[in-house]
């Protein structure tokens, strides 16, 4: 029974992520990459242990993350409440080993550490419950 509930839940989350994805695409078309990143980070990490949902959400975040050109500009309009979750996704990005993704993540990581401090890194690494 529990599995059914989980599956239903997962479908609902996937639907929500798809909706988010469309919104991001339209924001990117209007060249609002920071708004797109905020949208992607909202409701993250998905409150589930389902790896499919986590991957789907990562794809959406990754899409928005890679469009960021001006990192300093991004931080001037990104509120501190997003820092912790962004850091988690940066580490997910670094774990892919993909060259362009890693380059981008490292660039943002440097600036984010400058702003949010080492505490932010520790919160990203120490959290084994709400993984992204």
């Amino acid at each position, binding site marked *: 029974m529990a599995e059914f509930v989980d599956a239903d839940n997962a479908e609902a989350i996937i639907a929500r992520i798809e909706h988010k994805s469309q919104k991001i695409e339209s924001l990117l078309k209007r060249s609002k990459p920071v708004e797109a990143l905020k949208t992607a980070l909202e409701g993250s990490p998905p409150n589930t242990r389902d790896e499919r949902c986590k991957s789907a959400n990562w794809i959406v975040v990754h899409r928005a993350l890679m469009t960021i050109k001006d990192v300093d500009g991004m931080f001037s309009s990104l509120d501190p409440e997003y820092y*912790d979750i962004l850091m988690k996704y940066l580490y997910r990005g670094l774990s892919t080993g993909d060259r362009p993704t890693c380059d981008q993540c490292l660039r943002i990581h440097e600036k984010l550490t400058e702003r949010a*401090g*080492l*505490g932010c890194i*520790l919160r990203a690494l*120490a959290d084994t419950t709400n993984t992204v």
Partner: protein
Amino acid sequence: MAAISIHRFAQCITCHAWSPDQSMVALCPNSSEVHIYKMGEEEWERVHILQKHDQIVSGIDWSSMSNRIVTVSHDRNSYVWNQEGTEWVPTLVILRLNRAALCVQWSPKENKFAVGSGAKTVCVCYYEQDNNWWVSKVIRKKHESSVTSVAWHPNNILLATTSTDGKCRVFSTFIKGVDSRDAAQPSSAESRFGEQIIQLDLSTSWAFGVRWSPSGNTLAYVGHNSMIYFVDEVGPSPLAQSVALRDLPLRDVLFVAERIVIGVGYDCNPMVFAADDTGIWSFVRFLGERKITSSNTKYGSQLSGAFGKLYAQSTKYGPGNDISDLSKLNVNAHTNCISCIQPLKEQGKAAVSQFSTSGMDGRLVLWDLENQLDLSEYICLFF
């Protein structure tokens, strides 16, 4: 400077405790011994060595009224030391643990003490007059991992614990024949020994260093994810606040007043937290000196000790800047993780104006809050 005295006693100090009149300090130099030092004319003088444990002593507490020392160790034993003449005489307390004992604290009335252990248990020990023996009662099957810290509520009944399962819990330790019913607060009057009053599930990683405020209304503890938690109205509907740190995690906390907390840990520099008029807790500042040139304030504020050096080396600074910056970063009173903070209590005062810290660098540092002008607005309110 807030640090008024710095002395290096050993390679590493696992824990320390002060004698009732604060003329002597008992500390464990990362060995199976406890050394007691007395402040002589000029220097600290070693006056006693307590040798009985087989492994590292992980906890020491010195009772202020009865002048008894309790020690716990990784060897799974606990001793209560009584001073008879010039000697300290140990009494073994059987804890029946199968893992290391990690922390210990006397209850406010000093008729009980609590030991947290790696066996996922808390032992509450009390003296049995008839048998001339310390008896241990165990709180079992409540913790899912090691108990890292214990803290007594001023009412002598409630005990808060933190554990590496990330949770902070509050238990009743009412023991028939030791505690009287009327001593307990109304909320805990009904509870039996070992009953869990509350479980706080705020941290996502290891929890350390729990303490009650002087009134017992607020609870503070830290998480290894660089967070500090403040809990008001501990009971059926607690009010919790989490404060995320910019810097490395904390290991231990101390309430110096009802609304001021000092946190110590991996940043090697005590942090001051305070609650404003509306009860919102926030980070105020570091207590130790930190002379940083204005050009790198952004980095400087997060750097310290060895980690700072590492970070500074990998960061591109202007030429010639590095050496002066590094030397300035090393003026910290502590050069490694601070693992223990103890108040220096003045008789009849709830607030603490002096305290001591010790850590992995083997230093014992005394701090004074009195001449901290910017903190005086918080301190005036409470001293």
